[in-house]
């Protein structure tokens, strides 16, 4: 069923015997997420330094401990307690998972984030960048060692429900691929303009030997038939 196209799906088989498809996040969304997280951290440091600045030497101690904790454990805490999402990742709709699609735990998260040090070398994730380009799951070294992946959180689909119409039977035979194409077409009605939908429907004109013009309405009616509505 899945065609062997070049894409960023990673397949994981569960113990229940079904395949899960993880949609891997690439360099760009992860970089943006990192930048957002960095900005958040900088904002926290600024606020902290103002507060601790008023507390003298003790404040300086707090500041240093906070920097240590935030620099090393900010991603860990969020990843483990917030479904694999730091605020930056959440804003981009991506999350960290174990390679088998299960939620990430303390040790994996700790590992991938401590090894960030190496990925960051020599400057701004040079090593991590090359590592992500060199393997098929966009993993930086920390991900490789911890066996974690960053994936898009599957959100409710943008596809819309197939518009209801009285089903008709096509006057020509459709093989499986063609049936699926028509169903997918119908599911995309919400995303495409009316003109485009008509235009796409016209492509099918030659199929109909009786020279009936194919149009959107007819095609949707066929789709309704294909999914079993009456």
């Amino acid at each position: 069923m899945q065609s062997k196209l070049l894409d960023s799906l990673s397949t994981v088989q569960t113990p229940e015997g079904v395949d899960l498809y993880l949609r891997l996040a690439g360099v760009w969304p992860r970089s943006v997420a990192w930048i957002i997280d960095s900005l958040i951290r900088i904002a926290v440091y600024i606020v902290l330094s103002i507060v601790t600045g008023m507390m003298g030497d003790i404040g300086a101690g707090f500041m240093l401990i906070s920097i240590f904790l935030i620099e090393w454990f900010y991603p860990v805490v969020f990843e483990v307690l917030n479904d694999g999402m730091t605020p930056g990742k959440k804003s981009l709709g991506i999350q960290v998972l174990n390679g088998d699609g299960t939620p990430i735990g303390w040790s994996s998260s700790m590992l991938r984030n401590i090894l960030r040090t190496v990925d960051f070398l020599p400057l701004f994730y040079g090593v991590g960048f090359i590592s992500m380009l060199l393997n098929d799951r966009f993993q930086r070294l920390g991900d490789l060692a911890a066996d974690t992946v960053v994936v898009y959180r599957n959100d409710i689909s943008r596809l819309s429900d197939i518009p209801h119409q009285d089903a008709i039977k096509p006057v020509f035979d459709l093989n499986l691929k063609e049936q699926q194409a028509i169903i997918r077409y119908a599911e995309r009605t919400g995303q495409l303009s009316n003109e485009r939908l008509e235009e796409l429907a016209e492509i099918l004109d030659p199929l109909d030997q009786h020279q009936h013009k194919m149009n959107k309405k007819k095609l949707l009616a066929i789709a309704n038939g294909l999914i079993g509505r009456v």
Partner: protein
Amino acid sequence: MKQSDFEKKYLGFWEDIEKLLDISPVASGSSTEKRKQRKNLLRSDLGETFPENYRLLCHHLSLARSRHYSPLLVERLEQMVIRSHQLFYKRKTHLLSTVLRYFTFDFARSVRNEWRWVLLSAILFFGSFIGMIVSLQFYPDMVYTVISAEQLADMETMYDPTVDKIGRNRDSATDFQMFGYYIFNNTGIGLKTFASGLVFGIGSVITLLFNGLVIGGVAGHLTYIGYSSTFWPFVSGHSAMELGAIVLSGAAGFKLGFSIISPGRKSRLRSLRDSAREAVFMMYGVATMFIVAAFIEAYWSSISTIPAMIKYSVGIGLWVLLLIYFVFVGRSRATR
């Protein structure tokens, strides 16, 4: 079965699960409310029927895929299965008992397991450390090869016996500041030593040698110019924890690096994953040691009124305790 019939038959079932997973397309109630609702569900272990329902759901997904139902339906099922999968296989940990078990058993065991790397790491670190101290007594100018003149001058003023406040030139109010600094700096160095070991162990070698030479340089120089009476009592208290932690960070780094150099019968990636898991496990304890060292350094080492003999005894005592800990703790349960 046509898709509509399939949907009609199981829609109620799916909607229940979606409600449980909080991914229902028909959102109801405020998000905080839903969150609370979901937490309660999670706390009640998802109900006894969840495993069964989850398997049924997986079955539906397989059916939907093999019958080529519409992508919309398949995607909806996929999403339910992914979320359920994550919920179902979430590992529960009992923090307190895990921590207790770690320090009464696992940490010492993991260090003993890696005794070869610990040994290599110790030889590199203490070799360069002691070598530097000894050679500085004969060639005192050598110290400038590892430490700049200004830094050295700073060190000299800190430990000058003629100055009243011994140690790192501070009063008690700054103890906490220094505590923060030691945590921030030393623990950070330890974690970096570990991480940089990933680069075929080179990072570990460099950090160990560098730290050994610099620390040895300071110690050797201050000894040579006759500041022993202030320097050694100051550092003796936290030396066991801090130097021990440096050595163990290096060892954990070696384990990472070597797993790639010589993966044995595993693939390099597999070997790295397995070793990394064990190495980071060891690092929890190492990080704790750094923090204990920081605490001792800030609050015990800095007290200049305590006689040197007591400070030496405590220092040596901690070394002995540390060795006993790593040699003997957790042996009785060595076969899990």
